[in-house]
């Protein structure tokens, strides 16, 4: 308990929470992408995979609550840090050079908040099935939820695909900085590995962007139908 209080009291403690929750979310987005790419293997593969994920409610809800907790911790420490960081400057400069601070590093809050609104929409859309109620009635020949048809139908609206691709761009931006900063926050970066980690984070962001965007793009271009 003392450790928990100390964690949220110190600026470094909040960054540890930020980095650890961020790291779990990074692992999740990588795994989630690998799952989603089965869209290109056809209805059988993705529907079977979806049924497999939902086979055990205990595991499913265990994973869901874990992820929700991570998002909660990430948001909570972001809010605390935002307040402290803006209190620390008070008077602004009239003229300010950006000196080395990348666009991604200066906009973590903005990219994070828009990402959060995307996550809410995404969950309502494909998990809670609230945006288009017809999704709930889609079943394949084996009686499984027809995830393939749901995704194709969802992404055939240009505004859904557009918001999705835009959000993946922001995820790329957030992680091009965040996936490297988390190593710094946890004390794992040093003079030897810093260039590699910086490069790897940017590459990861780009790979995630291309991977995730390929699905709505393939639907819009009628490659996947």
């Amino acid at each position: 308990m003392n450790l928990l209080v100390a964690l949220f009291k110190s600026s470094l403690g909040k960054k540890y929470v930020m980095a650890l929750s961020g790291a779990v979310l990074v692992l999740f987005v990588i795994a989630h992408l690998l799952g989603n790419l089965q869209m290109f293997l056809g209805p059988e593969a993705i529907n079977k995979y979806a049924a497999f994920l939902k086979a055990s409610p205990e595991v499913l809800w265990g994973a869901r609550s874990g992820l929700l907790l991570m998002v909660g911790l990430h948001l909570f420490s972001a809010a605390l840090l935002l307040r402290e960081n803006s209190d620390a400057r008070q008077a602004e400069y009239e003229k300010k050079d950006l000196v080395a601070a990348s666009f991604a590093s200066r906009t973590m809050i903005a990219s994070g908040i828009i990402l959060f609104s995307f996550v809410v929409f995404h969950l309502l859309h494909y998990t809670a099935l609230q945006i288009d109620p017809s999704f709930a009635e889609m079943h394949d020949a084996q009686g499984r939820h027809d995830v393939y048809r749901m995704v194709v139908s969802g992404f055939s609206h240009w505004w859904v695909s557009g918001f999705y691709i835009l959000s993946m761009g922001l995820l790329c931006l957030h992680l091009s900085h965040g996936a490297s900063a988390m190593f710094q926050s946890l004390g794992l970066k040093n003079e030897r590995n810093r260039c590699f980690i910086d490069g790897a984070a940017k590459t990861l962001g780009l790979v995630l962007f291309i991977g995730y965007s390929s699905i709505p793009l393939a639907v819009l271009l009628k490659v996947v139908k």
Partner: protein
Amino acid sequence: MNITLRVWRQKSRHETGHFEEYEAHDLNPNMSFLEMLDVVNEQLTKAGKQPIAFDHDCREGICGMCSCVINGEPHGPENKVATCQTYLRSFKDGDTITVEPFRAAGFPLVKDLVVDRSAFDRIMQAGGFISVNTGNAPDANAIPVGKEIADQAMDAAQCIGCGACVAACKNASAMLFVAAKVSHLNLLPQGQPEKSKRALAMVNQMDEEGFGACTVTGSCEAVCPKGISLSFISKLNRDYLGAMLFR
């Protein structure tokens, strides 16, 4: 050369400040930035006006006393030099130069371009030392120190505590300063007995002084007149985490 200066003037913390414009003529390009301010101040004094208050001491880049944000960059446009070693040849004839004080809640303004950086002294007092019982000076080579460690410790020890890192950071974070001071001692064998205590005490004091947290933008490293590396912040994160969990 001729320069137009826009300088932040503020009588005290409790009064509102504003920019004032000054023309400085016939300057030698090999004058330092501070010498140019001296010239302007002489003019102001002769005209019966208040000279611009600015901090300075050694004027050779080693004391950390000079400050100022020059055209939006702490210590001006050149890399790895302090304001006192910034020369007018770094600017163009006819330039307008904006000069502001370091701005941070942890560095309250005193007057014009002078800010109170004693928060750094209090951070040092919290743990920036090694406790040794008095007695004869020990033999210089009694404790062997590996070359690589010694080099790293000396890189960290280069920090002159000027506060440019705070001034440049979008969060006004003092992490680079604290990281350099903690790492300098925590790397060396003499610093080991108080390693955890030092990391905890200095970071806690830093938080108390109202500095922000690190977002790893790298601005601090870019403006540091001594080129202190961002990697020391990673080391501080590591030392503090270890101290928090295992002390």
